[in-house]
């Protein structure tokens, strides 16, 4: 039925789009006159990785994790602590940064695997609270191990970042390019997962876990693996943040960061792949516009969520999608609220 064409394949299309996006970001990096835009985008990359990985859980698997910031922070801490070990940098030389990134990714994946194996035994609110409990435990550990993590002060003293592949992460533009690469790679990973057969399994679990189990799907394992993948990808956001600030702070793992990530997903739209990224940008705009007039940003965010919940009744991108559908289709279009809880 389907004719073979290299770019007709969904994976090839996603990879091509990712490549184009990366080139676009590099172009912005090359022509941007000041550093403001680049720093802003770097911040958005970090937040984008956090929400897109969380979207894999909330939007695609129907798992409401309240503790996602733990994996985000874990990425930053592992990256920073590894690079602050002189022996590591001495041994790996120019490969220090890529290897530290890889360690952050895998180490956080392992952490998420352990937490996920425990949390996935529970469902709904119990699952949500257990993820929150593990996040709080993680924060306590960071604060407790002062000798290694700097405790409340965070990972101070700067993170050494030896140049590699001609990239010196102390330079704004190089730092930006590296962050853009991690962002695009992370989002591409989420995209490929959602397009794959495993992605269909995630949606089965979200829609009707019992039925999925009855079709022979090991739903527990599906949930654990989704949790692990989401945690690993979130860690890349922490790496971006650690590169950006040359530090790591326990606040990154605070519960308000997790909450804000959920907020951004709700704001942008739960039912479309790009919704959460729209949420990240919208949140940033709300934040910065408010700061022009007052420091009460929380109030503006509160009003925004009220507007989204009470007026649009769905995220921005979902609302746009429904609006477009309503214009094209018959006058009575049923609401498409079955997707995720």
């Amino acid at each position, binding site marked *: 039925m389907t004719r073979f064409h290299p770019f007709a394949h969904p994976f090839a299309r996603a990879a091509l789009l990712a490549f184009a996006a990366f080139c676009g970001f590099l172009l912005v990096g090359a022509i941007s006159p000041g550093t403001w835009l680049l720093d802003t985008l770097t911040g958005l990359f970090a937040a984008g990785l956090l929400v897109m990985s969380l979207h894999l859980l909330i939007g695609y698997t129907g798992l409401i994790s309240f503790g996602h910031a733990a994996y985000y922070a874990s990425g930053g801490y592992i990256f920073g602590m590894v690079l602050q070990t002189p022996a590591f940098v001495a041994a790996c030389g120019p490969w220090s940064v890529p290897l530290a990134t890889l360690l952050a990714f895998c180490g956080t994946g392992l952490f998420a695997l352990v937490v996920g194996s425990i949390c996935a035994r529970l469902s709904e609110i119990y699952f949500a609270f257990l993820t929150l409990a593990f996040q709080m435990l993680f924060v306590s550990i960071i604060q407790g191990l002062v000798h290694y993590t700097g405790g409340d002060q965070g990972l101070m003293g700067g993170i050494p970042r030896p140049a590699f592949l001609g990239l010196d992460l102390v330079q704004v533009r190089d730092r930006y390019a590296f962050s853009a690469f991690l962002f695009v790679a992370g989002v591409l990973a989420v995209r490929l997962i959602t397009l794959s*057969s495993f992605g269909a399994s995630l*949606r*089965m679990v979200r*829609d*009707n876990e019992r039925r999925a189990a009855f*079709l*022979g799907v090991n739903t527990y394992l599906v949930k654990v693996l989704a949790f692990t993948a989401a945690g690993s990808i979130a860690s890349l956001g922490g790496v971006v943040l650690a590169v950006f600030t040359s530090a790591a702070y326990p606040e990154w793992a605070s519960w308000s960061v997790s909450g804000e990530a959920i907020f951004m997903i709700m704001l942008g739209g739960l039912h479309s792949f790009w919704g959460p990224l729209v949420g990240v940008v919208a949140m940033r705009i709300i934040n910065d516009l408010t700061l022009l007039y007052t420091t009460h940003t929380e109030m503006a965010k509160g009003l925004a969520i009220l507007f989204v919940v009470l007026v649009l009744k769905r995220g921005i991108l979902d609302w746009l999608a429904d609006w477009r559908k309503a214009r094209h289709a018959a006058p009575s279009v049923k609401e498409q609220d079955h997707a*995720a809880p």
Partner: protein
Amino acid sequence: MLRLEHLVKRFGGLTATDDVSLNFPAGSLSAIIGPNGAGKTTLFNQITGHLVPTSGRIRLENEDITGLKPAAIVRKGIGRAFQIASIFPSMTVREALAAAVTAHRRATFSLGSAFPRRDIADRTDELLGLLGMEDVAERISGQISHGDQKLLDVGLALALEPKVLLLDEPAAGMGPEERWQMMATVQRLWKSANMTLIFIEHDIELVFRTAEVIHVLRYGAVLASGTPDEIRGHPDVIEAYLGRETVEETA
């Protein structure tokens, strides 16, 4: 194909399944009828592993499957559709069937190919044709008619290529016209897929016209078994379940 031997299920003081021994030969089309609370769905739940019998044995092709977990029993080849259609509401009909085929072909954890994989997409087309659901293939499962949702539920079970298919009231909640269509489809699927089919149904008319063999349950026990003609004339059944009027109507 499937044999139940002295099956007993007790919930506290209540005996929901009372020494049931039934045989379902390969390729047969059987119906289970009985008044509300006769233990029909409880019987299905034991066969599919959702409930563990208090005593007795369940054998599939002479293999003892008593007490296995539902997922394991599915793998052995017993598929099931539910009384209340159990589907994937946000997926299109095509996606839902493809997802079921994906599970059957053990590609649940595959990251190597886009969903649906080519061989899975082909099998999905086949299933859509078999079910006669091509027209609604691209619609969201949660938004199709009740009858189509029930049919999709049957389709999900069918995607597993079961040896034995259990349908719990396939025509429940449908209009008269739809019910007959549904049963005709069920009969067609049974013939084309060459499987053993067992269904629970309340509509006596439907049962008499469709089933080869009918088992009547009452208070968890088998009251009578036989062909539709035998059951129609069975004095205990007339007395206990059908009532004189119903028999006269259907006769």
